[in-house]
């Protein structure tokens, strides 16, 4: 039986929102709003965690399905409370993960597309996901990013995390996990049944969400292109 516990980061409102995203009667609109608000809550928590300093930068990495909701709320809250911090976005289109030959240690999730704003080598890395369970998608996206940057701190942020996710990530990353800091609102002892994140967000399936181009990506990308065209 799944046992859900809440962390000190969760206020009463977060508890209600988490209950809502696991309620099958929650509409697509309400689900998206709940994720946006959970993102805002997590943004405020992170704002107090990231050290103050000159030329501080962070890269917020999310998946395509979370981009316009969880990530948009998170970035908005972080921007408003930490104006000293330059925030860059990375968005990943991942195929669903699978265990090659059913071997758990060989879980694979192909990245089919990336959107990545220019980020300093030493930026803080914030990896955001609505629910972290197997950890394969998170591990793949971190692996992609650390190929080109060397963050001194990697925040793994989610409204809800499975209790054994840190163990799985530790196995994958070895010594690098010393740089990891997990920030979540709730922890589940086992995977919740009957909840499909893609369908709750309003997509038919993983293929469907991977065709989408999030508004936040379109807007930020055009702003960047416009900026580089005029400079």
């Amino acid at each position, binding site marked *: 039986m799944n046992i859900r516990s809440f962390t000190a980061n969760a206020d009463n409102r977060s508890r209600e929102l988490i209950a809502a995203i696991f309620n099958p009667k929650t509409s697509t609109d309400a689900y998206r709003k709940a994720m946006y608000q959970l993102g805002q809550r997590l943004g405020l928590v992170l704002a107090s965690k990231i050290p103050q300093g000159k030329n501080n930068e962070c890269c917020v990495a999310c998946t395509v399905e979370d981009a316009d909701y969880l990530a948009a709320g998170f970035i908005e809250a972080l921007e408003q409370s930490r104006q000293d911090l330059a925030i860059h976005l990375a968005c990943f*289109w991942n*195929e669903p993960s699978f265990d*090659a*030959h059913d*071997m758990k*240690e*060989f*879980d*694979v999730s*192909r*990245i*089919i*597309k*990336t*959107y*990545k*704003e*220019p980020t300093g080598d030493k930026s803080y890395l914030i990896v955001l996901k609505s629910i972290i369970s197997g950890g394969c998608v998170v591990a*793949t*996206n971190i*692996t*992609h990013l*650390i*190929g*080109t940057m060397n963050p001194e701190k990697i925040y793994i942020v989610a409204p809800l995390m499975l209790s054994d996710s840190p163990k799985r990530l530790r196995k*994958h*990353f*070895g010594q690098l996990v010393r740089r990891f800091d997990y920030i979540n609102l709730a922890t589940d002892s086992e995977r919740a049944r009957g909840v499909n994140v893609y369908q709750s967000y309003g997509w038919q399936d993983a*293929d469907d969400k*991977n*065709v*989408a*181009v999030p508004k936040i*990506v*379109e807007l930020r*990308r*055009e702003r*960047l*292109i416009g900026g*580089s065209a005029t400079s």
Partner: protein
Amino acid sequence: MAKIRKTKRSSFAFQTFTATQLLVYLSHKQTGGASFAKGYNYEATFALKNIAEAADVYFELGIDADFKTQCPGYFVDDLVIETPNTINCFQLKNKKFIQWGRGRKGSLAFDFAYQLRQPQSKLVDLCLVVPSVKVARRLAQKKPITLSSCSVLAFPAKNFVDLIKDGDISDSLSKIANSSNPPFDRLVQIAKLLLANWMFCGGNSKISSLLSVDLQPFIRSSQPNHNALSRLRPKVAGILSGLPHFKYSIDRGFFHCVYGGTTYQSLAFDCFSSEFDTVQDWIEQNAPSQFPGDFERMMNTWSKG
């Protein structure tokens, strides 16, 4: 590694055995070594590096190497790589204290000497693999004279992610990726799939079989890149070249593109496929004037495996 054409009798005090005794010895020896029951190990990560290198040879020259572990009749058998012309036998020792021994049964010197005595129709290379350069150097210096043609190689004992990160196997894996400059995660995924396929087949497989399961969107095309370039229709090339802030390339047989310096993607199929013709048909018929919008959404559809 030196090529061994002729074997000599050892000056070491090698024990001699009857053929039956040797068969019993080999059958016991082959119950040890590479066991995948507890997950991948030193032998598997060393095999991974060699599989990637043999895969490159397969793509370039069409030579399909046969990879084996625990081969019947072999004394040096943690990994045996056989091609039509050569046999490479590797013995792996992931220990701190490693010695050749004095030629008694079970010692490295015994196994290497008996392997040298086996009649072979092909060129045979024998190699001892150890986890550190220091140990490899010491063992090379203390090698029995009769084993002078055998080599000692250092290969670090690390998990495969660290082997890639530290550059121990990244070059080998990069050679078979679907782009010349693959991101770190793609190398990790290629490594995972090759290791899984290797373990699934129990450490006995041809390279072509190891590459045939699940690896297709991650690895290069077997055809030369200039052939892939010639598959791009001039009209399509003209339309793509006119798109603002859009750049494309054809590398390792695959179509890759970047928009605005921030958005990267590749088609999931190579330029020799019928799917690539469908992509070109769409571009010709719709003549997109910009990447965002319909063309980007179509690219997303085509990038899926």
